[in-house]
């Protein structure tokens, strides 16, 4: 089955990105295809390269990065949600004259159309709320 996942909660504040990660791993292990992970609302913080978790805690952005790489999953960060939360790529940084960018590799900033597209091309869309 083709499954897409929506993440609305921030890592280290809510459990949403961690629960979604376990779900995605199990879905892949069961032979399903994760079509896209869409990061929306506070979920966009998963893509912040500057996150430094405590040493005894799971590194959620790295985990998402790995699972996406290994399984060629599309990881899309909603642009409207991201820029107002301070998660920006080099293009935004230069457009808005910001001193740096912080979007993690393997994540891509794009529009809500990618969520609509995911809902069209997936058999299931499952949301992990804050």
């Amino acid at each position, binding site marked *: 089955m083709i499954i897409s996942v929506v993440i609305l909660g921030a890592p280290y504040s809510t459990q949403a990105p961690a629960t979604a990660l376990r779900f995605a791993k199990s879905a892949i292990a069961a032979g399903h295809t994760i079509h896209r992970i869409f990061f929306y609302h506070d979920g966009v913080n998963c893509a912040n390269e500057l996150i430094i978790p405590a040493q005894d805690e799971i590194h959620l952005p790295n985990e998402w990065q790995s699972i996406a790489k290994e399984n060629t999953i599309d990881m899309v960060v909603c642009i409207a*949600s991201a820029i107002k939360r301070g998660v920006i790529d080099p293009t935004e940084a230069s457009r808005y004259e910001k001193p740096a960018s912080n979007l993690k590799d393997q994540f891509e900033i794009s529009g*809500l159309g990618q969520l*609509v597209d995911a*809902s069209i091309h997936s058999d299931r869309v499952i*949301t992990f709320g804050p």
Partner: protein
Amino acid sequence: MSVQKNLLLICRKAPYGNALPREAIDIALAASAFDQNVSLLFSGDGVWQLLKQQKSDSINSKNHGKVLSALALYGIENIYVDNDSLKQRNLSKDNLLVDTKSVTINEIKALCNNCDTIFNF
């Protein structure tokens, strides 16, 4: 995106305190722009979103009522409001700024069962 699906957005949260209600409307607009068949149901605290005379300058926030007025511009016409939720809040359709169809719990269940995807915000 040539496939057209039936998408139901359930708007359950009050406006202003949290950004989720606005972000839900953005999904509706995007889906409509991509020719999806979008229905909106305002239920629970979501019915507060529909209230007339919101003056959000007082809290330096964008007016949610105006955000909702974009629904008509995008041709989104299937807008439902949960009748029980209105009653529970001592509200009637006269208090609402958008033209909505008032629905019973059984009609809501039918909406949920007949769509392809549900987003619950």
